[in-house]
């Protein structure tokens, strides 16, 4: 990452000072997201796709499916693969080439959020036990990075999954007929997981950081949860957390979860 593009320390101090007064640079409350815009079906060739904008941050998530052999330890279950690519066009910080730490982490967090919540019913993606199962690919592309790519990708992934259709499969020739879809959707459970990230800057906890805020964030906790239970947690950045702070984070995440879910509910039908 080029140092030139990172946020200067003095801006970090300003952000912390302003947060102490309970204010943020863009007049948002600490629990407030920027405006969320969702568009589905943005890709012609993908099985399902979504474009999510949170303020200036923008990601596109696409779902592809193919038929492959199952893993030996789960012969009757489909597979899931999540990859994220941070495109150089989305930020001067990203370079082309093999995925770096941030891209790998982004992909893994989204993967875990979807996988561990049992959102996809993998048993139903089995064509022939031990031989043929569907593999679901979630591909995340950053279009513009103004902070909080994690949540944008998480929202995009579940909306794209919800809108995806299974392509036709020719069992005689053993090929997937791409470009033709069945009416069947990917079997999903009713428990919709949403992964949301809480950041700690100074003494304040906040959600949906801008690029500048994300740069000075001391702790980042991504919690993947559905209405009923928490299924995944990932902590980032180097500072530590106290038990009390952690329960505050859990409370905050729960409140924000309800708020965000209401906003994107219409895309999840």
């Amino acid at each position, binding site marked *: 990452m080029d140092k*030139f593009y990172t946020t*200067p320390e*003095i*801006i970090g*101090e*300003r952000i912390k*000072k*302003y947060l102490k007064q309970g204010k943020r640079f863009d007049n948002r409350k600490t629990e407030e997201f920027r405006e969320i815009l969702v568009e589905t079906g943005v890709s012609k060739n993908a099985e399902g796709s979504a474009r999510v904008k949170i303020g200036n941050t923008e990601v596109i998530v696409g779902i592809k499916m193919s038929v492959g052999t199952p893993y030996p330890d789960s012969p009757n279950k489909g597979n899931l693969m999540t990859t994220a690519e941070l495109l150089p066009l989305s930020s001067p910080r990203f370079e082309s080439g093999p995925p770096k730490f941030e891209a790998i982490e982004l992909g893994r967090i989204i993967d875990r959020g979807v996988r561990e919540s049992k959102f996809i019913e993998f048993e139903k993606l089995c064509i022939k036990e031990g031989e043929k199962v569907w593999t679901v690919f979630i591909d995340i592309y950053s279009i513009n990075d103004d902070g909080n790519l994690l949540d944008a990708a998480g929202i995009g992934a579940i909306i794209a999954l919800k809108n995806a259709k299974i392509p036709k499969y020719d069992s005689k020739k053993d090929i997937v007929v791409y470009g033709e879809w069945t009416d069947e959707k990917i079997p999903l459970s009713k428990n919709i997981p949403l992964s949301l990230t809480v950041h700690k800057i100074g003494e304040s906890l906040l959600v949906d950081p801008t690029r500048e805020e994300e740069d000075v964030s001391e702790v980042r906790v991504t919690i993947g949860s559905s209405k009923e239970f928490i299924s995944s947690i990932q902590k980032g950045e180097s500072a530590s957390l106290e038990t009390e702070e952690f329960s505050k984070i859990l409370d905050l995440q729960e409140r924000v979860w309800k708020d965000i879910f209401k906003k994107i509910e219409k895309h999840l039908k």
Partner: protein
Amino acid sequence: MTEKINRQIVIPGEIIAKGEDFLPGDGTEKRGNEIIATRYGLSEEVNKLIKIIPLSGVYHPRRGNVVIGKVENITFNGWVIDIGAGENAFLSLNEVPRYINNDSLDELMNIGDMVIVKIWGINKRGIDLSIKSRGLGKIDEGIIVKVNPNKVPRVIGKEGSMVNLIKKETNSNITVGQNGFIWIRGDKISDELLAKKAVLFIVEKSFVPGLTEEIKEWFDKNRKEKQNE
């Protein structure tokens, strides 16, 4: 009788004029008897001199420019400073107006600090900087806004009219670096943020004629909104 060259958008390699009537200026080059563009921007002719007002691109360092940069590294006799130009710039210990011990350079400026510096020389080795004038040195407080370096003249305005207007309206101190970094320091953080908003508004509207008037209206509108709140 020579024909007048109109303002037009040119791309690198484009022939702007032919013949011996014109002289090549900034962003242009003479090849044979043709004047061609070397940058993307608006071509303009003043007194037979053709120059290009660039619309995009990185900062081109010039001698005498005051710029804002970030300390990238400390060497045994100075600081390497990133000013957003093609190459790194160097601030030598000799160009600091007070005595600094050789092994305590980081006490004056450490890696990651933002500094206001002046370019006093450009040569093959790189860019040489100085902080030997008033108003130069390390930035302690405030916020930094980054804009396209080609929009800097618009932010400053005619003889500083624009930047003075912002200073007056927001009670802030503003230093505009020629490389597109702008330092804003006010009494209240909300003042600084208002100044930042104004700067970004100017950059967005940089092509509008009579911009200073528009900014005045913009400030009036902002003030009313604040009172209503």
